[in-house]
């Protein structure tokens, strides 16, 4: 720790410039700004080098045709043109949305139910939380390997169906089987996480609100819709936004599930498990079309941006008090903490 601290501390000590005493009431003037600016600088330096620069560079790259080894060839907007005509890409976009929808909706619903149940449950609350959260902690690669065996034709899922007298399902070999399998993995991984977040939201509702509702003679249904859900809105928004951002970047599940040495099996049969990020990875790092990959990154960004905004509008609604944006939420939370 000390070695890390040193470079940060040293320049501060070396600062020779006498402090320019301006209107400041504190001794030190401008100079007193130096330590905090230095303290926040690592983030901005790292972001400039590893965040902002690559983003700018990716604009440049997306105008090039380049395999990473030979010379770059300027192609203008052609990569974007090709992308718009690429049926596999649009298929991947569609798949991503289908998987996102198939996973997010049941996941948020189940999480809400679990949160309510947990809220009314006192005994073993800690143990329940741990149990529900563990899926979120474990490596997706390992668990995808496990789910892969469960969803195999001769796997556990179909064995279970056989036991109750049903036919097996082509979990990994049919359009909706593939999407369901991937979605089930996502749901399994995120339900507990979101349930705990909703639970925190429930617990943050001041008891007085319930008292007031009771005094007004509200039944439990009315309480739910008039008191609980409105109060939960910020957490639901948080969960919806993160689920969207995560959901549109699904990669590991599809990549590991259909890992194979065969020609063109990325994304599974019919590429029904092909997602945007998986396709980006395939084009860029399997086929080494760096320019194409960069262009795809921008389209992905545009899609996520649009969806995040739509999400905000939908969940945040027109309520003036709830300004869209994380900053708005933060302000609200700050106020609540202050009570």
């Amino acid at each position, binding site marked *: *720790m000390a070695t*890390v601290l040193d470079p*940060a501390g040293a320049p501060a000590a070396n600062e020779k410039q006498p402090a320019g005493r301006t209107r400041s009431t504190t001794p030190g003037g401008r100079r007193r700004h130096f*330590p*905090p600016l230095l*303290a*926040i600088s690592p983030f*901005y330096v*790292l972001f400039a*080098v*590893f*965040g902002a*620069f690559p*983003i700018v*560079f*990716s604009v440049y790259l997306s105008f090039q045709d380049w395999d*990473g080894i030979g010379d770059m060839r300027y192609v203008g907007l052609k990569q974007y043109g090709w992308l718009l005509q690429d049926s596999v890409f649009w298929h991947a976009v569609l798949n991503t949305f289908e998987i996102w929808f198939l996973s997010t909706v049941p996941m948020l619903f189940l999480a809400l139910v679990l949160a309510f*149940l947990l809220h009314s*449950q*006192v005994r073993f609350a*800690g143990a*329940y*939380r*741990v*149990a529900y959260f563990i899926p979120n*902690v*474990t*490596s997706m690669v390992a668990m995808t*390997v*496990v789910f892969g065996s469960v969803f195999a034709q*001769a796997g556990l899922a179909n*064995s279970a169906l056989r036991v109750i007298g049903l036919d097996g399902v082509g979990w990994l070999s049919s359009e909706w089987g593939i999407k369901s399998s991937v979605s089930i993995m996502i749901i399994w991984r995120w339900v*507990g996480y979101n349930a*705990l977040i909703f*639970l*925190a939201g*429930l*617990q*943050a509702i001041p*008891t007085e609100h*319930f008292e007031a509702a009771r005094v007004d003679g509200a039944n*439990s*249904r009315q309480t739910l819709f008039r008191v609980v859900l409105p109060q939960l809105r910020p*957490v639901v928004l*948080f*969960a919806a936004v993160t689920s969207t951002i995560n959901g549109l*970047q699904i*990669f590991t599940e599809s*990549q590991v599930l259909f*890992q194979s040495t065969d020609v063109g099996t990325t994304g599974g049969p019919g590429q029904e498990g092909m997602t945007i*990020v998986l396709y980006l*990875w395939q084009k860029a790092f399997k086929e080494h079309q*760096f320019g194409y*990959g960069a262009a795809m*990154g921008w389209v992905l*960004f545009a899609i996520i941006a649009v969806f*995040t905004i739509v999400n905000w509008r939908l969940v945040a609604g027109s309520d003036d008090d709830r300004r869209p944006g*994380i*900053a708005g939420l933060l302000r609200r939370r*700050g106020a609540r903490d202050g009570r």
Partner: protein
Amino acid sequence: MAADERPTGSAGLAIGSGSRLSRTCVRAVLLLGVLVSLFPFYWLVVLASGTTQDIYRYPPKLVPGPHLLDNMGRVLDTVDFFGSLFNTVVVAVLGTVLVLFFDSLAAFAFAKYEFPAKKFLFGMLLVTYMIPAQLSLVPQFVTMAEFGWAGSLKALIIPGAANAFGIFWMRQYAQNSLPDELLDAGRIDGAGFFRLYWTVALPLFRPALAFLGIFTFIGLWNDYIWPLVVMIDPDRVTLQVALANLNILYNTDYSLVMAGALMSVIPLIVVFLVGARHFLRDLAAGAMKM
């Protein structure tokens, strides 16, 4: 704020607050949820302790077999498990330490100091948080290649060594839990910014650091796409990439792959269980702050 402090049903929610019967129902559903949550781990143990042939058996064999140690031994013979484990530990530990340090330092500045363009800088931080990492997967790789960092653990540690989420979250914590009086007292004693950070703020940050630490550690440990792309030296990969390779190289030997999967999740589960109590409490609070 923890659930444990609440009397049953005092929140006034109808669910579960009524009769004994409905409480039993609640408990049953919750237990079912626990079963679903944990079953894949149990199944992983079953698969990792059986033979490859067991996997295809009908009816399926639902109890662990006797081959666990044998299969795990074969993993050690087949891949450099400890090497990948070591890489992963280095990345997760160093990365976490750097994140904790840089984030708490920046958060301290944002929470307790005024400086030029503070609002703008903080706003920028929020905006960067919304940029999906995959947007610039290709140029990030090229940047790493130009630095000569491709294939090096630095590529996994340095770029994320200070992150928006952590700064953001620590700042909230600092605003609420770091009394100005304490800082003023320190200033009177002549302590400067970094001294105050180190001796006053950091100790008080401890609970928040614990949460952010576990959160970051888990994220670094489980990261897959970036190591997959940038760790170009096949002899130096992280556990996740090693496991993915094992899965594709030995697809005929499922018990081996499952044993590898089990070995790759155990260390993290242990870390999580040790810190779970604090972590989960703060996770919920953290989400509320976002």
